[in-house]
């Protein structure tokens, strides 16, 4: 067990160190504050602000959209249809959807977009990423809501609450730390995924100004920069990866702090 733990931790540490060692030297203010100038991919001036903002817009939009859909679904599964066959079936389908590779979502999203005539855009990316975030969110929330003690639900019902009030005012509050975890998990998956946004959000050197503009993303920025034959551009790929890691890391720290803040209300 100790050895396995060290292998896992060591692997994680190795990835982080490699990205930081290779990326930090290339990290500069201009990377963070500029969009690519002409010849950026040949090693000239510019930064990847387009991908940073693109990724943040996209992941935030997708996670927001997924949350709006997932929370009601999880609550419905848990408190409205409970142990019915349909609920079991829905859970199975969600588990399968969780396992589908994101490239499949990308292709699916792209096909639909072609069909309705939507170009590669922020909107297309948001919808596609939300699609593969939903199963993650629903299943994690479902498990968290299952932990809400039945005594607590009884206490709320006994005061004359409707099911709707019990679900949204009591169960959600009790499960809030876990719901935050679900959101973070989905956000992490969303912001780090390259395959699903390749066709649906496209790539651009500009910062998107509307939902119908294409949007650049950090994972694709890493991919494209690493694919160039120029060493200085390749180090920028590591720098981009480092930025991505820092975003995810700081979010998980913030959400942990929030979770702790909400957890103080919970009676163990």
């Amino acid at each position: 067990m100790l050895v396995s733990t060290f292998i896992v931790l060591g692997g994680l540490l190795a990835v982080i160190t490699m990205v930081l060692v290779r990326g930090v030297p290339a990290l500069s203010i201009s990377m963070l504050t500029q969009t690519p100038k002409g010849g950026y991919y040949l090693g000239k001036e510019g930064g990847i602000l387009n991908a940073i903002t693109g990724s943040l817009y996209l992941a935030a939009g997708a996670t927001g959209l997924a949350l709006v859909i997932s929370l009601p679904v999880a609550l419905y599964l848990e408190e409205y249809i409970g142990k019915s066959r349909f609920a079991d079936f829905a859970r199975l389908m969600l588990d399968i959807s969780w396992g589908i590779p994101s490239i499949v979502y990308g292709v699916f999203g792209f096909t639909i977009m072609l069909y309705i005539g939507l170009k590669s855009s922020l909107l297309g990316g948001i919808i596609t990423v939300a699609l593969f975030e939903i199963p993650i969110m629903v299943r994690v929330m479902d498990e968290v809501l299952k932990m809400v003690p039945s005594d607590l639900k009884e206490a709320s019902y006994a005061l004359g609450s409707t099911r709707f009030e019990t679900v949204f005012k009591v169960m959600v509050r009790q499960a809030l730390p876990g719901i935050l975890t679900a959101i973070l998990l989905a956000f992490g998956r969303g912001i780090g995924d390259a395959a699903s946004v390749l066709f649906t959000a496209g790539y651009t050197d500009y910062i998107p100004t509307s939902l119908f503009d294409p949007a650049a993303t950090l994972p694709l920025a890493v991919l494209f920069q690493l694919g160039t034959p120029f060493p200085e551009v390749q180090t920028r790929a590591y720098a981009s990866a480092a930025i991505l890691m820092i975003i995810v890391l700081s979010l998980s720290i913030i959400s942990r702090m929030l979770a702790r803040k909400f957890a103080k209300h919970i009676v163990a």
Partner: protein
Amino acid sequence: MMKDPLKPILSVQNLNVSYGEQQALKNVTVNIPEKRITAIIGPSGCGKSTLLKSMNRLIDLTEGVKYSGKIFYHDTDIFDAKTDVTYIRKKMGLLAQKPCPLPMSIYDNVAYGPRIHGQENKKELDQIVERCLRSASLWDEVKDRLKAPASKLSLGQQQRLCLARALAVDPEILLCDEPTSALDPISAQSVEELLHELRKDYTVVIVTHILRQAMRLADYVVFLYLGELIEYGPVEKILKNPENATTQAYIKGIFS
């Protein structure tokens, strides 16, 4: 079985409740008199809690539950499809076995009930919270930290908070399911004293397996055994001079 001299606030008639194959209550008929304490006693698994939770239809939450018979609250048939369950539950506060504060502050715990029933006025809420916390004799202990999480209170305080929370929706009846069994003796005593005090304004139905508690608190006693109502009447009669052989055996402690 003796005739009830007092006007019943709750009237249970031929109530049968079953969970799946297992029948929890068999043809129970009993009247609960107004502004008195009625204790439901009996060995564990005899259907005490089921009877209590039938009264505010909390048994609806249990999977696979089936029931027949009638329960009248005043003149309202609580099982009638037209009856508003939330109204029934609002009129019957519940004090559970284990204190279960809502995941919010002390103030919000008490204000939760009035808020869901439409009270938004801050001043009125403040008054309700203070009045109910005083009734539950918790006010002096928490008045300086109303915004603190309820989870930080001691178990005994939590149970009194749950009582205050129940009082806040202006019930007529308090349903108590072994409300002292999770508490230390001193907290248990304070909850008992409160119930005794509240008897002036509320009808109390208390499930207990502690005979001495029934003796101290109750005016009337309902004895259940294996889902059947064995005996029912004033406390002195049932606990001191029971007619039925099973009741006698239980009270003498031959089984429990």
